[in-house]
């Protein structure tokens, strides 16, 4: 029982990361029907960018718990990653708007390669694991027999807030309604006076920004980053998005949490080398029994 509770805690925490990255996946899918395989790599790039910025501003400081510095660097990294994601849309996907969705997916895979190898050949970054400049202090609180750090709690809270903010934006604001309108019928949205290209660009910005936030938190929590980290996280986030029902905002977050819990429990039972297997096992089962995901629309349609 204690083990289950412990893994539930870990799972929620892990799921918060997955959920944030999955949100970006899901929103881009929702509006372009594109599985953006480069999404995880923007997460990775964000980790490296934040690594460099933090390294520069924290020279000679204690690496523990620089919360305020982390906060503003986090915001800056969100803006940078959002901007990069938007730029990728502008340069790569937008000129391909009339192309088959398969071409866009191949372009996304290409972009993923460019980003990974770009980081690989960048001086100071490269192929080795880098130690993140800020790490989370071990202090925290006990729940039952389990110890959780403050950092874990903050990560869950920040993720929750960002997810809620996104949910509010898409569900309640006029811009969000325009996003959903573009997602359903681009031409009809245009005839309402919606600047479709701008709305799509904003979606890419938000998706990138959320991945940026997740990246900073990952760095702080795990303490190390690597140029291939985006690949696994991207696949896990994609799994989370599909589990929840891709294209669905609430579904992405829910899928992230479910995947986090399943993966934590699976890892505890089978061992950590099975983490990815458990994740994709869950995906296969889900697609088998409920292909629309927990809350969402059919995926098979355009893939």
């Amino acid at each position, binding site marked *: 029982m204690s083990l289950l509770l412990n893994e539930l805690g870990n799972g929620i925490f892990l799921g918060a990361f997955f959920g944030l990255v999955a949100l970006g996946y899901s929103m881009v899918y929702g509006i372009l029907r594109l599985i953006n395989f480069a999404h995880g790599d923007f997460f990775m790039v964000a980790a490296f960018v934040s690594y460099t910025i933090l390294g520069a501003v924290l020279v000679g400081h204690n690496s523990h718990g620089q919360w305020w510095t982390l906060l503003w660097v986090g915001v800056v990294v969100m803006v940078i990653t959002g901007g990069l994601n938007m730029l990728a849309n502008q340069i790569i996907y937008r000129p391909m708007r009339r192309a088959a969705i398969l071409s866009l997916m191949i372009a996304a895979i290409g972009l993923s390669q460019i980003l990974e190898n770009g980081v690989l050949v960048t001086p100071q970054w490269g192929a080795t694991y880098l130690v993140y400049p800020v790490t989370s202090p071990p202090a925290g609180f006990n729940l039952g027999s389990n110890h959780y750090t403050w950092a874990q709690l903050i990560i869950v809270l920040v993720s929750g807030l960002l997810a809620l903010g996104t949910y509010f934006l898409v569900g309640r604001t*006029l811009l969000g*309604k*325009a996003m*959903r*309108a573009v997602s*359903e*019928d681009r*031409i*009809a*949205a*245009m*005839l*309402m*006076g*919606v*600047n*479709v290209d701008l709305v799509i660009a904003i979606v890419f910005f938000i998706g990138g920004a959320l991945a940026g936030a997740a990246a900073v938190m990952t760095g702080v929590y795990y303490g190390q980053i690597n140029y291939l980290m985006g690949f696994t996280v991207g696949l896990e986030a994609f799994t989370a998005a599909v589990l929840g029902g891709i294209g669905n905002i609430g579904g992405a977050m829910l899928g992230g949490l479910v995947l986090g819990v399943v993966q934590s429990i699976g890892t505890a039972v089978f061992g950590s080398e099975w983490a990815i297997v458990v994740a994709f096992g869950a995906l296969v089962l889900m697609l088998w029994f409920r292909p629309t995901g927990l809350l969402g629309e059919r995926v098979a349609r355009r893939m």
Partner: protein
Amino acid sequence: MRALELRDVSVFYGAVRGVEHVDLHVDEGEIVSLLGANGAGKSTLLKAISGIVHPRAGSIEFFGDALAKQSAHRRVRRGLVHVPEGRRIFTTLTIAENLELGAYGIQLGRGERADRLREVLEHFPILQRHFDRLAGTLSGGEQQVLAIGRAMMSQPKLLMIDEPSLGLDPQKIDIVYDMLEEVARLGTTVLLVEQNVSLALEISARAYVLQQGSIVLSGDASTLAEDPRVADAYLGKVNDVPE
């Protein structure tokens, strides 16, 4: 004042002709019909005017300003609104959200948008029912009514509407046409595309008849209503009529 003036407009889809050498005008406050059989180019012409497709040649002026390469969403801001064929309401959004989006192009504040919504509901009380339901649950007639109400949210100067009677029973058609007359009475100019000739001519001042991408007849609605060549146009025979 000319609301809309097309001079020598041609639209092609690759090598396929949509419309060719079309001259057409609509005066402010008029209801004008664009008639013709399936595939005559009526919808293509509306798409060219609203900016979804771009003409290969010719000029389109809206209240004296050339539209040329202006993007579709900017044309909406200037008061040119197009209700496309098949209504194309947003089925996964509520009726209220559909209406709100109708005012997206003119960029109102939250308060103004609410006022505008109230006005539209006053003029078209039929929309008030099922306000928070998903638009996809509406019947065809209700969807058409919503599509017109949504278009009116932006207080357009010119409303173009494509086949509003398509697939509706006579009772629903009456409701939709009453609504169009109300739109005109409120001061909006209307360009109406229809296959249902008698229905369209009844509320129009003038009409144009398209056949295979070209305008073959035009004139006062009352004159055209008597003209046997209008019916022939639907059967593809106008060019064969002896002088």
